[in-house]
Structures are given as structure tokens and as C-alpha cells.
């Protein structure tokens, strides 16, 4: 579905692989023809802004809560959502997105408790789960496969 609108939902950035994977995935999807919007908390967006100060990898960076409000009020929509989560709050945000939007949701579950957290997900989504904290390689490889499936 190149040309589709993609949303990243980024919560607390305390797990290091979140920022690097967001930069990587945003760049790859943009090159595949998707319009990528990255929505995050203040800390998550600041990390991205400093890492990618010229906006080379992330073209559109917005506030997470404001974006959800806009979706609820039907001011914007997305075809695909990648929801980053490593704690219950992240899963709660993704569950909200599932309830308010028709977007296909990919739950990117990472961190030391990823397996247990992924088992608490009750909404429809495709789960990408890795127990990693610092090394993004395994998650990158899994997401490469997901991107291959998306553009098929």
C-alpha cells in the first residue's frame, strides 16, 4: 500500500532501541512511498529532533495526545499504525488507537518484559516482540520482514 498514511505512536523513550528503530523504520517506509507521521511524548520527540536535526529520517513529528484527539475528532486518519510499547501505558495507548481508528495496527513490543506485555494485548494487531533493550538488530530484522509483507 505505498502512498498510505502511517503513524508511529511513541511513548516513554527510556528503552534505547525505540529511537533508533523509529528513525530506521520512518526512513525505510518514506523511501517506499508512505507518508510517515511520528507521534510521541515530549521526551520521545525531543530525542528524535536532536538525533535527526535536519529532519532527514523523520519528516513529520507531532505530539502523541494531540494526534489521538485529532483522530477521535476525525480531523485526520491513518491506514497503518506502528505502536511502540514496553510498558502497560504504551499498550493502553495502542488499545485506544485500536478502538478509535480503522488503521491496521502493528504492536512493536520490546524491553525486558516484552513477552509478558505482549500477552496482555487484547485488541486486533500484528505483534512484533523482542526482549531487547540496547541492541536493535533483532527488531530491525523482524521489521524488515514486516515491511516486505506490507509492500507485497
Amino acid at each position, binding site marked *: 500500500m505505498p502512498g498510505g498514511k502511517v503513524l508511529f505512536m511513541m*511513548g*516513554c523513550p*527510556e528503552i534505547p532501541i525505540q529511537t533508533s528503530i523509529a528513525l530506521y523504520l520512518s526512513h525505510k517506509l518514506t523511501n517506499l512511498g508512505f507518508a510517515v507521521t511520528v507521534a510521541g*511524548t515530549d*521526551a520521545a520527540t525531543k530525542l528524535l529532533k536532536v538525533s535527526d536535526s535536519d529532519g532527514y529520517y523523520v519528516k513529520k513529528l507531532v505530539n*502523541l*495526545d494531540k494526534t*489521538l*484527539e485529532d483522530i*477521535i475528532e476525525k480531523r485526520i486518519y491513518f491506514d497503518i499504525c506502528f505502536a511502540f510499547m514496553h*510498558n*502497560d*501505558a*504504551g*499498550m*493502553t*495507548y495502542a*488499545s*485506544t488507537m485500536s*478502538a*478509535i481508528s480503522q488503521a491496521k495496527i502493528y504492536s512493536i513490543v520490546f524491553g525486558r518484559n516484552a513477552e509478558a506485555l505482549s500477552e496482555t494485548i*487484547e*485488541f486486533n494487531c500484528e505483534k512484533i516482540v523482542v526482549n531487547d533493550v540496547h541492541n536493535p538488530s533483532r527488531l530491525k530484522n523482524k521489521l524488515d520482514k514486516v515491511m516486505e509483507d506490507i509492500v507485497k
Partner: protein
Amino acid sequence: MSCIEQMKYEILMEKNTFKESREFIEKNSDEVYYVPPGYKIFNNYYIIGISPIAIGIKGYALIFTYTKPCYGTFVLSIDSEDSRKEIYRLREVGKEKASTSLKDDISLESFKKPQTSFQDIWKK
């Protein structure tokens, strides 16, 4: 910053999972209503949560969840003129839902399913 953080609130429970917070509201409220994710209260706060989201009433206080990405879910209580308006609104919509349910003979089981419309709201 959400408008909630600028209001006078009491924290009843903090930094828990959403489900634990919902159970707390169910056990510590006089009345409980269930709303879908994105339900708006106090004019501009959209509740983040896992369906069904519990909102409790105790006296004139509204008891609800507030999820912060880095800290988890809090249970807050607000007792104010605004909370009274919200309680009135919940009871009115709850009444409408109950009356629709009786007419349509909807089983109680169907109330447990995730909601798809923001208009859907019902009373336990």
C-alpha cells in the same frame, strides 16, 4: 499538558496498570459507568484506556483513569462544579442506553464486548 493537570484533583491510586485501575474504580465508587476509549470529559480530556473504561461516581466526585506514558495509569478524583456536570451527563446517557436496551432486548453479555461507537455508553 492536559486540562486535567490544571484542575484540582486527588490521586487515589498511582502508577498501576490500566486493568488494576479499572478494578479500583469498580470497587471504590457508588456508581460505575462504562465508556469507550476516547470518551471526552471536562471539555477537552479524551480518556485513554482499554475498553470498557470505568468512570466512577462517589458523592459529587468523578473518579476516572489518567494514563501517562512514562508512569502508568493513575486514578483521579475531581469534586467540582465541572464534575457535577459530567456526572449529570453520564447519568442521562446511561438512562438513554438502559431504555434502548430494554426496547431492543439486548442481553447483558453484549455489554461486555468492545464498543465501536463513541455514542455507546452504558451503566453497569
